[in-house]
């Protein structure tokens, strides 16, 4: 079942625009929303949540139009920009005590078990939590009001490798029941390698790919070879060419693979794909 659908989301600023952003996510999956800094990831997420006013477009959560059923949709979403960074001097229990009043489906037992699971002390202040713990606390809040869709903006930014891995494993645990889904934006491609089922790639405010991760990676190959092989026909197919003293290196779509003996072809990973696409 489709938990999230974004159709033709547009937002115009003076020097930047989201152009017809569309993608969808089914229940029980993790989607990585990838793009370089300033590509429009946060603007897209904020437009989806109507924190910024999109010029046009529709966002549907579990079949309901977000603009028309904002209250219902917000009950079903846990939205986190980074980690919890509001009211840093307040204790967790104070924030929770305020937050839970707004959610009729709030489950205190679940909240307590999540605090235990994440090793969170409700007597601590927000600013006493590490970046990873802040994300976990926001997840605890979201899951306790039975949010089915978690929208997280760069949740792994600033985390050490161990905390990142810990969090990514947690994401995978969360979706195992088939009811929860996660959309998280990041520019850390290794996060996506580890846990994303689907990739949505945004560049300069436009979605340039929205597919399952394996297909996305299989779409591209890395090629390298001597500069002499760079004829106009091949050059037109290469993406993000980088020349160096030993030759060139570029990305190419798998369907455009050249049959040239002197060109070395290898599998691309997400980071290489991103670097070459952004170099273009």
């Amino acid at each position: 079942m489709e938990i999230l659908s974004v159709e033709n989301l547009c937002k115009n600023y003076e020097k930047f625009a989201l152009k017809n952003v569309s993608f969808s996510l089914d229940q029980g999956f993790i989607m990585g929303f990838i793009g370089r800094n300033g590509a429009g990831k946060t603007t897209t997420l904020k437009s989806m949540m109507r924190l910024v006013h999109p010029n046009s477009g529709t966002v549907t959560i579990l079949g309901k139009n977000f603009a028309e059923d904002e209250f219902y949709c917000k009950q079903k979403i846990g939205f986190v920009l980074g980690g919890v960074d509001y009211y840093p001097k307040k204790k967790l229990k104070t924030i929770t005590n305020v937050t839970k009043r707004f959610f009729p489906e709030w489950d205190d037992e679940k909240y307590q078990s999540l605090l235990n699971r994440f090793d969170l002390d409700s007597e601590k202040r927000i600013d006493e939590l590490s970046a990873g713990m802040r994300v976990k606390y926001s997840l605890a809040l979201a899951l306790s009001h039975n949010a089915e869709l978690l929208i997280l903006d760069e949740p792994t930014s600033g985390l050490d490798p161990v905390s990142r891995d810990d969090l990514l494993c947690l994401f995978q645990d969360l979706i195992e029941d088939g009811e929860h889904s996660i959309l998280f934006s990041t520019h850390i491609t290794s996060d996506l390698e580890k846990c994303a089922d689907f990739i949505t790639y945004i560049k300069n405010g436009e979605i340039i790919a929205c597919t399952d991760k394996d297909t996305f990676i299989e779409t591209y190959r890395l090629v390298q070879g001597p500069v002499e092989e760079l004829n106009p026909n091949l050059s037109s197919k290469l993406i993000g060419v980088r020349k160096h003293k030993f030759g060139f290196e570029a990305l190419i779509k798998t369907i455009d693979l050249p049959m040239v003996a002197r060109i070395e072809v290898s599998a691309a990973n997400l980071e290489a794909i991103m670097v070459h696409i952004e170099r273009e």
Partner: protein
Amino acid sequence: MKNLLYKEFKLATHPTTYLFLSFGLMLLIPNYPGYVGFFYICLSIFFVFLTGRENRDIFFTVSLPIKKTDAVKARCMMIAIIELVQILIAIPFAFIGNSINPAGNLAGIETNVAFFGFVFMMFSIYNIVFIPLFYKTTYKIGIPFLFGGIAFGLFYVLVEMLVWIPSSIQTFLDTTNPAIMLQQIPILIIGIIIWFAVWIITYKKAASNFEKVDI
């Protein structure tokens, strides 16, 4: 709305608000301009917005399942409550102050019925300038406070002038004579009506400004 008000008082209210509420005590000070104590509440309202910005209150609030306009309404209601409480706290001190300073207030208007009517009007003026101006951006706080403070100050000067310039108005306003204070009741009622009507306009204008803001 009940939950949002709970949030306002539990998270957003700055501690100085509770301290400044007690500044009704300043009405006990002999020969002191009585309106000054009430400006402290305007200052505490400024602090609420200032710390709200630093604590990312707006992001927290609009992430909750509420309407954006209700976030503004709850804030406006919180302000109305603290203004009313400030006035209620001040009333007994006005009585006590008048009884322990029988010579009257040489530094301005006597703390009488008309005085409280003017306080309501001052709060109205501050609210309608400061609050909608803040919700135009949700991050610029100094300029709205400056304009709100100037508007409050200009009205303060105007009403104080009424009791400084010798006239029948001065005689009518600058007294604690019970018989005249009874005649001042319409000023108090007009003050309350203006305060309430301006509160509604302030909320609507602020909510409309906030609707247009990208967070």
